[in-house]
């Protein structure tokens, strides 16, 4: 599913973010990526949907070797990887419905499918009654749920989230975790970078700890392991 071998990443400014990553993640797994600030978690996540390219090493996603993946094929990789951002990345002038539908329109889904899928996913994240609102009329947690809805509406095989609960109150965070668990039980692989000790220690999953660009720990049903 996701396989990295000896992956290095040095940014253009000379900073080495990843220092030889080896990891294998199977279809349907739920993985927390933890570690101190600046350890390389976001870099690790960006490699998966090819926002950054590794300096060295092999990355295989869904049987596709990213190092030989043609630029033209990148969009098709991304259709299999739903991404959730800490800053939501919603379009401010579009309604909740339109924001989610947008992700299907640009991959040329038929209008009938779009309506059905968007309504389904709004149901899942509990925002059916706010479909016509624009992002500014929503709370932070609601916006985050819209961005989750957009990431999963296409039913991707993998969903990755970089600190999806970063700015949210505990109540909202748990709501979001429930959504993740729900789509995970449907077979979607979830990879989530987080600083939340509470979540990691409560909803027990595989924990991958990155420190100084290396995997320092990789445990199933692991602990957060850092002071919050």
């Amino acid at each position, binding site marked *: 599913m996701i396989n990295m071998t000896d992956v290095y990443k040095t940014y253009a400014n000379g900073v080495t973010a990843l220092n030889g990553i080896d990891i294998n993640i199977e279809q349907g797994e739920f993985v927390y990526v933890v570690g101190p600030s600046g350890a390389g978690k976001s870099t690790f996540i960006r490699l998966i*949907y090819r*926002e950054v390219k590794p300096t060295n090493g092999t990355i295989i996603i869904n049987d596709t070797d990213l190092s030989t993946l043609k630029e*033209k094929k990148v*969009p*098709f*990789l*991304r*259709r299999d990887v739903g*991404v959730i951002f800490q800053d939501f*990345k919603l*379009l401010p002038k579009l309604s909740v419905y339109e924001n989610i539908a*947008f*992700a299907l*329109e*640009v*991959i*040329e889904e*038929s*209008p009938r499918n779009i309506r059905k899928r968007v309504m389904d996913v709004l149901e899942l994240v509990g925002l059916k009654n706010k479909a016509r609102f624009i992002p500014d009329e929503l709370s932070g947690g609601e916006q985050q749920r819209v961005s989750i809805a*957009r990431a999963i509406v*296409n039913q991707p095989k993998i969903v990755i989230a970089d600190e999806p609960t970063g700015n949210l109150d505990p109540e909202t965070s748990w709501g979001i975790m429930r959504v993740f668990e729900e789509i995970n039980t449907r077979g979607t692989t979830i990879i989530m970078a987080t600083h939340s000790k509470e979540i990691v220690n409560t909803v027990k999953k595989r924990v991958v700890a990155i420190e100084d660009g290396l995997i320092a720990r990789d445990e199933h049903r692991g602990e957060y392991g850092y002071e919050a």
Partner: protein
Amino acid sequence: MTNIEVNTAMKLRTTKRHLREGLKNIFRNGWMTVAAVGAVTTTLLLVAAFLALMLNLNHMAGGLEEDVQIKALIDRTANEEQIQELGTTIEQIEGTESVAFSSSDEELNQLIEGMGEEGNTWQMFEQDNPLRHAYIVKATDPTDTEALASQINDLDNIQEVNYGQDVIHRLFQFNEYARTIGLVLIAGLVFTAIFLISNTIKLTIMARSREIGIMKLVGATNAFIRWPFFIEGMLHGVLGAIIPITVVLTGYYYLYNNLGDQITYSFVELLPFNPFAWQLSLIILLIGTFIGIWGSVMSVRKFLKV
């Protein structure tokens, strides 16, 4: 539905979307659109005027060339034998199409006829003809006339060669100047138009960089992202062609109907309105579209590194 039907439906829907988005951008960019379209309009107006002038001048020059003939006047001292010989020599020069002998009497008759009423006064010369025998020579290629004339001029027993050299020479020269000046002006304007179009589209791209970023992240293909910008540029070009085409069609219609009547000389015939004005309009539209597409390609290539 079959697979092909699904694909066609998809393509049709997507095409509609791109057209809609491109059109929206036109309105969103307001004054920048006006500037870009205005630049295309100015360019195309000039191209149209220039092309109409050039093509008509070429047409006239062509007509004129057809009529061009060399009149080689023969020395009065030449005897019959020498005149015969001269005829064969001219015939053998490369590029000669036809040679015809015209005696001094024939020449005088022609002159008298050509002058109409006034010609009568010349009739008194019939006894003592001041004119000379001549050879009327035509060149195979009219543009070789000048060279052929000078070759004939160098022959023995030739007194003088006439072929309306001044008119032809000036017409060709004018044509050439007009072409050079026109091309420089048009090239400058085309580049200005392309620059303005690509700048306008850059505005769209920058204003929508967030949207484009999200499109990329959810798996939109580059082609999908680019199309609306191509449409926007193409629309700049097509909109810019509207006024020039209107001007060409109405302007040439009046010009052809009024000027065409006044000028009676056969060689200054304007190209007929139909099909010329329509062809010119089509060319204008194509150039406009080309400028628009080029402008958008320039900006999209630089700013959509996707």
